[in-house]
């Protein structure tokens, strides 16, 4: 029997946003010499450089290295339309850093032709770092996910965290790991995914449950974290998983207080008519606090494992088709359960082939808010 009282990895947790973001980083970087590796994705998203600007403009002492992850999407990528925005972002980045960034190019597709190709970006992202020697010279690793697709930042964060955790067990002192994200719900609603992948993707490290033949009879419980405009994604993921129970997670409270209602209306037919979800299964989770989502997911998964123990438990599956911040809750829950509590959770995702900006002629106002989360800290005993 699994107890509800198992200690959570991220309890207490650390998250700061807005003014508190600035206060924290100012005091943190000014108080001592700190060597930083700042990892960010090279994309067209106008939020790409907001985080690094905030950090690098603080005049602390220590190394300030920047790693830029570039995505090789092949010659036919629709994102090539945004090359101008990407060039602008790269130019901005160049002005912000003293040294040339370390470039890591990851191949997003296998080498087969268009008709037969497979998405390999997640595995390549997980392979960017392999051992602690690549990271140990830094005091702080910052992963800025503002301009990274989920298929990249999920495996990247998980891999870095696992390397640091393993190293911590062996030698105690390891770099701290922070995740930074620039959130702007309005901007998110203007970036639309186009050309969904036909097949779902598993985040590397989290694919055992649904693929296991030995436990194929065990019930599958799916936790989709909902976001706007994801009907196609939800349908395809559902068709792949064919879950026995569904617990949708709605972002509420949220910066838009009506978003929870809007999502229920938008997905009403899918959730209630097709999937026949009981309203009691819906979980409401703070959009701005992924640690709360993390906690709620773990609790729900424990609950189902207990309830379904006569049927040999359950196979928990999480899909984050939502904003980046709340999605991190899924990552944390899956990681903690797998590595610290021996409970496998599958993370199932579906990527888009490209993106378009709705009403590109209109200015994009800067309503973004910076969030910083500490995933591994100096006093961490993990």
């Amino acid at each position, binding site marked *: 029997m699994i107890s509800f009282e198992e200690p959570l990895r991220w309890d207490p947790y650390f998250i700061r946003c807005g003014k508190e973001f600035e206060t924290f980083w100012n005091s943190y970087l000014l108080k001592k010499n700190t060597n930083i590796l700042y990892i960010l994705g090279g994309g067209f998203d106008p939020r790409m450089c907001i985080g690094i600007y905030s950090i690098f403009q603080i005049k602390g002492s220590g190394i300030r290295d920047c790693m830029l992850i570039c995505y090789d999407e092949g010659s036919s990528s629709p994102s090539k339309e945004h090359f101008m925005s990407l060039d602008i972002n790269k130019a901005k980045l160049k002005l912000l850093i003293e040294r040339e960034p370390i470039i890591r190019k990851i191949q997003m597709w296998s080498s*087969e032709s268009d008709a037969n190709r497979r998405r390999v970006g997640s595995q*390549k992202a997980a392979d960017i770092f392999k051992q602690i020697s690549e990271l140990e010279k830094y005091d702080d690793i910052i992963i800025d996910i503002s301009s990274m697709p989920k298929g990249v930042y999920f495996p990247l964060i*998980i891999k870095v965290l696992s390397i640091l955790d*393993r190293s911590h067990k062996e030698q105690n002192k390891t770099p701290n790991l922070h995740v930074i994200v620039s959130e702007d719900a309005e901007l998110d609603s203007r970036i639309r995914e*186009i050309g969904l992948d036909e097949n779902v993707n598993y985040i590397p490290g989290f694919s055992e449950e649904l693929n296991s*033949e030995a436990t194929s009879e065990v019930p599958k419980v799916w936790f989709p974290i909902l976001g706007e405009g994801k009907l196609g994604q939800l349908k395809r993921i559902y068709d792949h998983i064919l879950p026995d129970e569904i617990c949708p997670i709605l972002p509420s409270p949220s910066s838009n207080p009506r978003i929870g209602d809007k999502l229920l209306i938008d997905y009403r037919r899918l959730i209630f008519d097709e999937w026949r979800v009981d309203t009691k299964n819906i979980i409401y989770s703070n959009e701005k606090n992924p640690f709360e989502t993390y906690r709620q997911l773990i609790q729900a998964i424990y609950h189902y494992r207990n309830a379904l123990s006569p049927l040999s438990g359950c196979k928990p599956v999480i899909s984050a088709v939502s904003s980046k911040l709340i999605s991190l809750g899924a990552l944390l829950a899956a990681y903690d359960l797998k590595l610290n509590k021996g409970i496998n959770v599958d993370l199932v995702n579906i990527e888009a082939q490209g993106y378009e900006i709705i009403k590109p002629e209109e200015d994009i106002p800067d309503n973004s808010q910076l969030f910083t989360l500490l995933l591994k800290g100096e006093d961490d005993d993990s």
Partner: protein
Amino acid sequence: MREYRNPFKIRTAEQIDSIETFLRLFCPSTLDLVSQDKFLGRVEIYRSAPGGGKTSILKIFTPHSLLHIFELRENEEYKEIYTKMKELGVISNKGPTLLGVMLSCARNYAVLEDLELNKGQKERLLFSLFNSRLILAMLRGVLFLKGLEYPKDLDKLTIQRPHNVDLPLEIPVPCNGKELFDWATSTEKNVNRIIDSFSLAQPSAIAGHETLFSLFLMNPELIRYNNTPISSSILVMFDDFHQLTRFQRKTMFSTLFTLRAPVGVWIAERLQALETKDLLTQGSNMGREYGEIITLENYWKNASKSKSFENTVKNIADRRASLSNDVQSFNEYLQESTDTLEWDIVYEEAIKVISERICGKINSSQKYKNWIKTVEEIKKSDTTPQERAIELRALEIMVARADMKGQLTLDMTLLEEDFLEKKDISRVLSTAEYFVSKEFKIPYYYGISKLSNLSSENINQFLSFSEEIFEEIISARLLKKDNKKISAKRQEAILKKVAKKKWDEIPLQIHKGRMVQKFLEAIRELSTWETNRPNAPYSPGVTGIAITMEERDILINSIVNNENSKYENIAYIISACISNNLLKVSIDEKQGGKKWMKLYLNRWLCLHFGLPLSYGGWRDYKISEIVEWVEGKPVNFKKRNRMR
């Protein structure tokens, strides 16, 4: 029982219900393409486009299905399928005699290719996964077949070691089912852990297996319960084989052909319109290592099969409707004809206009004077206005045809025979109905038959349209319009709205979606032009294109060998259309001394484009012309037709 507001939206049901539903949906005549020799030790390959029925062919032979068929054999609904299964020798008077072991390849096999391992290691892990999973699926199937509890009763089974087969020592046979289960579980888990590991696996952990030896364990003589073989025969079935990587498929085919294990192996894979035969033909022979590849689309096109599909969807619709509280039958709420007072006025106008047109043409020519009599006879007949309008329009088509033939000396006997030939008349009448609907804005897409046609032999597609019609039905009941049928006009409006929504989703759902739409719109343009020609030469209408098999090879080479890269885009677009069920494909179709790959619009696209719903009419094009369509160059189909 739980109340369903709109049961047409349910895509899956509880476990027991889904087997019964699956069996109800399954058309027994599909089994005609399976014969007893397909269960022998040879590889059989089934292909179809998405939703074409390939998984159903496999699923019907699993223990769940066979047991259900046997248990329900006295039920009228299942008698036919039970009889056919008996004829195939897979069910006897005592129960199922075949153990079908089905395994999906849409799992984490392809991921093995992305791990940082060498080719040999990847291959061995691939075999490890397949071996362990086949054995697990087999054990589960055996227990189910014997009415035992899984996994509790595994120890009641015994598994012997096969003679004259080099099995790895690690396999615990001879043993009981539990021991083999534990071994297979551990093997699968080890490989899954390598796949899901956050660090590089130790080489010692990647021993893996050298080949697909589990096939040699698939021998009923070796697997016993109460000292008796568990069945007469075993069939291994691999579904979604196309989900393996190209290298993995090649490895598996090569292994299956080389091993020649004494067990039937079926492979179901998506029909890839543009794929080389290399994977199959290297070192293997059709007839010896594998049977003739069966493409299900070619099978379903038979008219009797489509009637069977219509009956099946009628049954599904009524059954689903009965799951709601208020509505018991779906079909009774659909207006099935425009032969009503409301439309009689329009038909009468149509009769007037068409007959004046015909007379205007034939009055001026001596050669047609007997046809004036025919016009009058039709007008005065006691058939309905709809029938008269259609007959007159059909006559107008025949006049146009005669005109095109430029017949100056009219052989009236020949023309009468032409007009009365049964094969042609139904096509011409069908075209006439379509022309009348279009010209006089009478609904054309309504009724259960058209709804069935719209489904393109795909149940999910049928449900996607009927769910919206059902919404209308329950709304009408809410508004107390209990006995009112959904009018033909309203049905058509609803169906067009669904089709439009599907069309708008294409760029969002498919890579290069806008190019795909351009390509489809070009097919629409040519189909519309050809279909609406006054003499309707391709009645009931053109709804597709074809390219020669030689040109298909050029497209394949553009993908595989990067030759003629200008065609790579088209090759991708055609593949995307097929894999997303926008086009129906059939290959190696013989006509006019050549072999063709035919590409028909999915019927919902015909609805969206305002085209007729029947198959048959197509036009051939060169791939260089298709390139121009996608590049947006306007095509003068009229000029092109004159040049041919």
